[in-house]
């Protein structure tokens, strides 16, 4: 599938993506002379690493900064602070042209299959555009590549000259995936790619993503609020709350022995398919605090069932609960 001569040799192992202390604040204008009044801390200091070919599932409630984190990593929204390194090379401070060149390696799949495709362009034009922008191949090669991509995502080539509105949601999502794959990216942010689809179609698209990952060795940042989906697709899981990671470990560890009270509450919200089950389930009360004025101390303490006085004043750092376990949690009480 790789037909571009200038693509460097790829190592399929090792760290692909490094995110260090990433922050994205949105200024809120208002008041006298529209000065900056407050800041929305959408992403407030996130650090992690992702290896080639792995999937990091990112979960959290609406508005916790999941999508903003994905976009800040891709520099679609320029980060307020922090570094993103792809293959050890920073993305910040690049010229516009240099950044465009790096975009070959990182792509995004969107949530809304009806907003993510331009209504006045044919499928062929949509999937071909990345090849046009990066001047890959000649006209004939580009057409071949587009047909190949449609086949990969499971669409017939008679889709080529059709317009997005002629397709169903699942088919449109496949078109979006074909576009994201066109440049042979090594890293893809999948921003709730199945949330807008019917359950039956969800599994088709998820299987497609899993298959692509196995065949092409692409690393995914898979954003979702659906824990079942995350469990199905992820190697590692990060739980996000108010712009920060509160827990980060392998999927097995997160789902078998969650350490953060927030993660436990989230997991307990998965419905149990047994009407007689009476196991006690911690239920989250209250709403997520405003990211404009997050609470002092641990951002979760106002809703936490086990919060202590220490939680109200001291911000917990993301740390390994027990050294060497690679199970990171941001809670004073977790062991």
């Amino acid at each position, binding site marked *: 599938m790789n037909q571009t001569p200038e693509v460097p040799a790829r190592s399929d192992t090792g760290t692909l993506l490094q995110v260090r202390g990433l922050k994205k604040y949105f200024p809120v204008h208002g008041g006298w002379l529209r000065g900056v009044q407050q800041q929305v801390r959408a992403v407030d200091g996130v650090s992690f690493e992702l290896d080639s070919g792995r999937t990091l599932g990112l979960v959290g409630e609406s508005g916790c900064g999941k999508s903003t984190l994905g*976009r800040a990593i*891709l520099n*679609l929204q320029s980060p307020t602070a922090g570094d993103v390194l792809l293959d050890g090379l920073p993305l910040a401070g690049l010229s516009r042209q240099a*950044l*465009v*060149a790096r*975009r*070959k390696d*990182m*792509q*995004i799949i*969107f*949530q*809304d299959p009806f*907003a*993510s*495709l*331009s*209504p*006045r*362009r*044919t499928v062929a034009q949509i999937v071909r*555009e*990345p090849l046009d*922008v*990066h001047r890959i191949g000649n006209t004939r090669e580009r057409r071949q590549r587009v047909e190949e991509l449609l086949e990969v995502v*499971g*669409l*017939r080539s*008679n*889709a080529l*000259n*059709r*317009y997005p*509105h*002629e*397709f169903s949601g*699942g*088919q449109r999502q*496949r078109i*979006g995936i074909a*576009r994201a794959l066109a*440049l042979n990216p090594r890293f893809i942010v999948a921003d709730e790619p199945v949330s807008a689809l019917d359950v039956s179609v969800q*599994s*088709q698209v998820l*299987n*497609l993503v*899993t*298959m692509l990952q196995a065949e092409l060795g692409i690393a995914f940042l898979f954003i979702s609020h659906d824990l079942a989906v995350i469990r199905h697709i992820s190697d590692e899981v990060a739980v996000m709350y108010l712009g920060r990671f509160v827990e980060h470990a392998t999927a097995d560890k997160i789902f078998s022995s969650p350490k953060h009270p927030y993660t436990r509450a989230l997991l307990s919200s998965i419905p149990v398919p047994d009407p007689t089950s009476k196991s006690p389930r911690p239920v989250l009360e209250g709403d997520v605090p405003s990211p404009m004025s997050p609470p002092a101390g641990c951002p979760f303490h106002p809703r936490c069932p086990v919060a202590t006085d220490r939680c109200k004043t001291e911000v917990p750092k993301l740390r390994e609960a027990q050294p060497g376990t690679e199970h990171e949690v941001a809670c004073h009480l977790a062991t």
Partner: protein
Amino acid sequence: MSARAEVAVSVGAHGDSLWSKALRKFRRDRVGMWSLAVVLAYAVVALGVVLGLWAGDWADVSGPKWAPVSGEYWFGTNIIGQDIFARSLYSTRTAFEVGLVVALGATALGAVLGSTAGFFSGSWIDEVIIWLMGVLDSVPFILLVAAISYTLQGSPWAMHIAMIATFWIGTARLIRGEVIKLKSLEYVEAAHAIGVSRFMIIFRHILPNTFHILLVQATLSFVAAIKSEVILSFLGLGVKDGMSWGLMISESTFEVLAGFFNNFIAASVLMFGLVMAFNMFSDALQDALDPRTVK
């Protein structure tokens, strides 16, 4: 189901674009088709004048003063014996010239400035364009034409320029709002992620999705320009070298006092017919292009 399973595509006709859908919808709109026919008939008259097929004698003083309607003078003659029918036909050409020039100029300007403002909304570029719109909007239209006309030393284009200078504002405001909406959609974000330049994003991904608005705005500007031309010519600020419905009505003010209405009726009825037909065409176009109306 295997992820590789081919997904059958079986909806709609092959390659059925939004435009061809709109065309089908428009074809089924009777009022729209009839009004389009009327507009085209006017257009043929105007084209004939341009090609010199008829009404070349509109300025000739050939007949008696105030001749009544007859086989020779279909609409009669005016105070100095000019053929009102020929003058009416020639005025159709003037109306189309003014309408087309102003509609194209105002829509193009509105599209470029409106989309620029929308794309860079919140930045100083947006502020400058909004300020410009506010300033031009605040000058009374007829005063502005008079000022431009005076500045250009009575150039025949003063009226066109003045209309373009004011008519683009409405289009620009609409397009600005639409662009602000469109630029936050995911397909524009996808274009950013692919690495498409900002220039190409505006012209390839955003503007084409405002074409339906531009088309309707162009037809509305066309009608507004024809109406304004009549008013301005009546006031002596409009057409300088030629004939127009406005000038005919202006001429008729003396004739009406003397009980001769031919000039007035000919110009008014012809203008009413074109404006009415064009307005109805514009409405039908709007319906056809609106994906929410189902017919």
